[in-house]
Structure formats: C-alpha cells, structure tokens
C-alpha cells in the first residue's frame, strides 16, 4: 500500500528536490567551517552563529521588506558572533571548545530575548515575504532533472555554485596555500612572514558570515519566520560534514546531500502518510552523522594544528 505511494515518480522527484533544498543551508555552514578548520581552528559555535544570522537576517528583511538586505544582515549577525569567538580563541588563546559551547548558549539566550523584546508573544508570528523558486530557462523543462535541480530557490543555486569556487580558492591559489600552511604549522608559516593570527581571524569571520547567511536562509527563505533555537543542530551537523567531507568543499557537498536526503526522507514519507513513528525518521540525520564519523575515523586526518592555540613565548 504505502510502497505504491512511495514508488511513484512524483514522490522520488519531490524527495530529490527536497534533498537538495535542505542540503544547501547546512552545506554553506560546512563550507565556512572548512576554511575555519583548515586554518587550525575548530569553531563549535557555528550553531550559535546560525541563530544570530537567522535573527538579524529576519529582522532586517521584516522591517525593510528586502530579503536581499536580510541576507546581508544575516551575514553580519553571524560575523559579529564569530568575532567574539575569534577574539577569545585567537587573541586570548582560550580553549576553542569551551568558547564554542558557551557561544551557543549565549546566542540561544540572546536571540530569543531580542526577538521577544521586539515582538512579544504572538499568536500569529510575523513573517517575511516568501521567496519564489527560480526556474532556470531551458534547463528546468528537462523532465525529472529539471524538476530536481533547476526549480529551486535562488539561495540553493548560490550555495552549490560556491562549491567549485571555494574549492579552487583553497587548493589552487596563494590565499589557499597560506590558509592551509597556518593550519598545518603556524610557526613555520610565521617564519616566512605569513600573519598567522590575521589569517585565523579572517577564516573564523568567513565561517561566521557563512553561518549567519545559513541562518538567514533558514529564517527568511525557508520558514519566513524566526523561532527559538531554529538552528536545530544544523551547526553541529555542519561540523560533522566537514569531517565526513574530509575538509574538502567538493566532498563536503556530497556529504551534505546525504544528510539532506536523510532529512528530506522523513518529511516526504510523512507527507505520504507512512505509518512509521516520525521520531525515528527525525533521528535519521543524527544517526547518519554518527555513522559517518565512525566510518571515516580511520581514514581522515585533519590539519595538524587543528584546535591548538598558537602562541609564542
């Protein structure tokens, strides 16, 4: 019975399109985190930065009516929170995980507080203008493929187009070489004149901007609303994707699609009324994460100086 409903073309097309849709925001955070980690910093505060971006982006879009401005402010929000992280971990050499965990608690409290100060408790929560899908001319008409890939909202295209660009930047350019050298052996990098702390700051801030933009995508483009704790662990999954994707933007994109699939399967199966406890489906992305980390544990080695503060006497 249920199988009949699942094994239809519509279902599969919907599932695949949803996979790509829900992979995109997580992937964006993961891309930022790859840069951060490649520079030798593990920022576990991504979750909190997503929340910040979600709030600032939502507020900007709601009050100006411009979603684009919302995205910009979302980036700014994530960036600001990552600046705090960078100051404590890079300038003061504090433990990166302690700071990350605390940033998450701080951001969750702060965003919720600010939202409620502005809007109070409402029955009909304020919403931004919904964002329309863009059909890519010519390509969106291709059967199946068009529906899956080329009838998405603009941010989805944006994120996936970033992948080759960021991959090229990291592995083929001087900037990328410098970032990687700082993550491998910061002292060696400094002796050839590379500003270690500056590069770590830049990478953390870039990661923060990506996380902030992720938040803005979630609040403005997906939900059109802001909710407490709406990041829902996406920041943590992004961290896992970085490892699963072996610190490589392209592989991370593939990893993100796996998570997107696990996430979408749950929504799509629920939509066709599968009698299966929804909680188990909702667990799927997190289970997949653990499984992924166990699978790659033997083969992936991160940057040599990851999580180590850099200071000389």
């Amino acid at each position: 019975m249920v199988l009949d409903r699942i094994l239809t073309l519509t279902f599969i097309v919907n599932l695949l399109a949803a996979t790509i849709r829900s992979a995109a925001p997580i992937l964006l955070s993961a891309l930022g985190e790859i840069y951060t980690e490649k520079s030798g910093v593990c920022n576990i505060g991504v979750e909190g930065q997503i929340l910040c971006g979600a709030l600032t982006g939502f507020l900007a879009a709601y009050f100006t009516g411009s979603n684009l401005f919302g995205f910009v402010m979302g980036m700014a929000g994530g960036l600001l929170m990552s600046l705090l992280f960078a100051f404590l971990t890079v300038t003061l050499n504090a433990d990166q995980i302690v700071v990350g965990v605390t940033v998450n608690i701080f951001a969750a409290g702060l965003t919720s507080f600010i939202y409620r100060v502005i809007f109070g408790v409402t029955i009909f929560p304020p919403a931004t203008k919904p964002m329309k899908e863009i059909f890519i001319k010519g390509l969106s008409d291709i059967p199946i493929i068009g529906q899956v890939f080329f009838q998405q909202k603009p941010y989805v295209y944006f994120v996936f187009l970033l992948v080759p660009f960021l991959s090229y930047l990291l592995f083929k350019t001087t900037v990328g070489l410098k970032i990687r050298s700082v993550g491998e052996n910061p002292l060696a990098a400094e002796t050839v004149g590379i500003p270690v702390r500056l590069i770590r700051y830049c990478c953390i801030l870039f990661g923060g901007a990506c996380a902030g933009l992720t938040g803005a995508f979630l609040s403005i483009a997906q939900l059109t609303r802001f909710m407490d704790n709406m990041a829902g662990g996406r920041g943590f999954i992004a961290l896992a994707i970085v490892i699963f994707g072996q610190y490589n933007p392209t592989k991370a994109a593939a990893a993100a699609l796996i998570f997107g699939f696990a996430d979408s399967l749950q929504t799509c199966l629920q939509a066709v009324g599968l009698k299966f406890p929804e909680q188990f489906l909702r667990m799927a992305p997190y289970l997949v994460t653990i499984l992924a980390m166990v699978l790659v544990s033997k083969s992936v080695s991160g940057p040599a100086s990851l999580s180590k503060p850099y200071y000389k006497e």
Partner: protein
Amino acid sequence: MNQILQMRGITKHFPGVLANDHIDFDVNEGEIHALLGENGSGKTTLMNILYGLYQPQEGIIIFDGKEVKINSPLQSIELKIGMVHQHFMLIPVFTVVENVILGIEAEKGIKLDLDKAREEIRHLSHEFGLDVDPDAIVWQLPVGMQQRVEILKALYRGAKLLILDEPTAVLTPQEINDLFKILRDMRSHGTSIIFISHKLNEVMSISDRVTILNRGKVIHTVNTKDTSPSELARMMVGREVFLHVDLISQETGDIKLKVENLKVLNDKKLIAVNDLSLELRSGEILGIAGVDGNGQSELSEALGGLRPIESGKVFVNGVNVTNKRPEIITQCGMSYVPQDRKKHGVVIDFSLAENSILRSHKSKEFSANGFSRKTKINEYADDLIKKFDIRTPNSQVHAKTLSGGNMQKLICAREFSRPHEVLIVVQPTRGLDVAAMEFIYSSLVDERSRGTAILLISTELDEVFSLSDRIAVIYEGKIVGELARENFNTEQIGLLMAGSVTH
C-alpha cells in the same frame, strides 16, 4: 672589510631569565661566523631577535649600513636575511616547491604559479649542488634533504645573510660534510653565514670567526685560525668543558637486561629498530652512541613499554617483558629516565609530591584500598627533595615551577629511588647547565657502583665517552659495532656512526 650586520647592546628578558645581556655581534660580508655556546647561553634567542620572531627590550640592529627595526620575519626576509631553524619550519604535507614559495608566491591572477618556481628551484638546486626534487612531499624526504629544502627557501628569497641554528644535530658525518661543502659554495657566492653550534670541532672546521656566548653575554670574538678547541671550550663554559668522571673499573655481574632481535616501527610505520640485540650486566654502563634519529627514541620507548614491539624479545632480570605494560616492566626491576622531560617525565600541572609517585602510585606504600596515602606521599617527596637537592619551596608546588635541571633531578630522584636493577637513561643532560650535568653524572656513577645495569642512550658523544664501560653504536636501527672502554677511539666510532664501517 664591509660589515653586513652589526647588533649593538641587544638585551632580552623573559620572565625570570635574562636571555641576552647587552650583546654586541658583527658579521662581515662573505664570512662564515660561528656563534658558539652551550644550551641556554642565548644563541637562539639572539638569532630569533635578528629574524624578527622576538623583539629586544634594548639595543639596535644595523643591517647593510642602515639601522633597522625587525618586527616580524617578513621584514627580515625583505632585508634578505634567511634562517634555517633547529626544528625545521616546513609543512610536512606540502611539496618542496609549495614549501619554498610559501609567503612569496608567484601568482597568475590569483592562481598559484608553480611552474616558474619549480624551474627556479631546479636551477638553484643545481647551482649549489643541493639535488632536491621540487615535487617531492616533504615528510617523505630524509632529514638531511629537509634541511636542504630549508636552505633552498632562504636562497629562493635571495638571502644575503643565512642563519643556521644547530644545523648538524640531526645529520650524519657524511651529511655534515655535504652541508659544509654547500656552505662554502654559498660563501664563495658572497653569502654571509651565521653558524650556531655548541660543537667545537665543527666550528673549527667551518668558520672564519667565532663569537662565544655564555649565560647571555658575549665572552669574546676571535678569528678561528688564531684559536684552538680548548681555548674555545674554556670560554664557552668558563671552565674545562669535559667533565671529569671517575669511572673506577669494577667487576660486572649477571646479565640484567637482554634484548634479542628487536624490531620496532616508528610513528610512520617504518622500521626504526631493526634486528637489534644487546646484553647488559649488573654494574656496567653501556653507552648507545649514534646520530639523532637512528632509532634511539624508538628503542628506548620499546624497552620502557611505551611502543609496541613487532618481533624479538626483551628480558629484564630474566623475565620476559616483551610488550608488557610499563608498570609491569617497572615491577620487574627497570627504572627509566625518558628523553622528553615535559612530555613523558613529569605531569607539569601536578605537584612535586604527586609527580614523585608516578608509576608507583598504586603500590601499597602510597595507596590503601584505592585511597592515596597523602602523608606517606608527602614524606616521601620531602625525602627525595632533600636527597637530590631539588631546589623548590616545598613539595606542594607544581612541577612547572621547576627549572629544567631541577625537573630532571626530580625524575632521577623518582627513578633511582624505586627498587630497580636495570636503569635506562635517555639524553639525561639535554638542556641542562653544567652544575646539573655534574650532579646527574655522579648519580649515574653511584648507581653503577651500587651494581645497577645502566643503558645510557645519548647523542652527546662526550657524555657517552666519559660514562660508558662499553659503547655500542646504533645506525639505522642496528648496532653496527661495539667497543670496550680501553679501545675507545673517536675516529672509529665516528665511522661507525656514519654507517660507513660494519664491525
């Protein structure tokens, strides 16, 4: 003659240490100038100041006729100063060419242009006889090659002045000869070189002038041809360099440590100790000599139970302890002074008292029904502090407050005071001042007369010479030769260390 560098009145304090005390130091154009001094005499600090890694509290630097402030390595690179650090500043996962161009990359737009750099590296490599493959991955290269990559980095940046910090520590005699040839080549091309070392014979053979540092002060600058090793030695330590050790010959007893066909892998899973066998009797000191990196660390770690043994056997007191846990080996009668004090020897955030019972913390003496016996432990620690003259306010301060010498005394105190018949000592005096060295030496001699079987693993040839009854030379993880005390001969041992003779 033109002076390329003048440093005047350089002073640098660290908390509790005056590392450089009003140092004046000059280098002429096209000379090799040796900077000679013991560990901790301030050589490396001075060079790190010149290279912009540290800023001095006082003093001026004049380079190429102009007064300069060097706030970062970038500025020193711009001035054409290059430095080969003691611990190589290379990125192991990068290729040679990536390492060389790092920081001054050639670009086409934003794209890395490796082709041009590769050509230039080939050219330089050929010109100075470096023989380095630009596309090799650095961690796969032998140590001597990695050093050449460091030299290439400096040459590629057009260095007029090259600083080499203890460049021979990791090299075999053959590699040292090659290095010296390269350095002389560079000198004839007009490059000035600062050669930091504490090895007298090397300084004598390579340098034009020598500046001697002791405890952060310049003792003297002399022309190499006007001086002698013994004069240099006297200036370096302010007393005779070779510590006199009274090693009265004595009867040896039973075999206490027996190693049979030992095979051990290093961290990269390559064979580090290869089919090594040795025997050690009570009341004798067996010195293991060799150039750093020939399997000494792996050998000592395997004997101490810290590294798995692939094949072969180890017997302590006749008991097979192969691949046994460290605490079991201890119970069989082995004490162990590790090479890396801060990594293995002590827990620096523990008090001295807590450190004094490491490895015996579960013994009946210090623990009862799972509870630590605080009073006993404190009494024991106080006793050790007194007996070994460890300079500390009390036994409750953290080990990190100790100086290197006192930290080593603490480790020796702990290891020598535990019941033991075999003692393994690795690099026991690295980084220590002369007084502490003397104390360690006499403690070792006392141990010997008490009948302990001692295995001394050290890369300091002088140390091995003065303390050992027998010397075994390790080369590429094998014992390639053994000499008894009456046959000790620097020439012979040097050849063995270089692997050029099989005994």
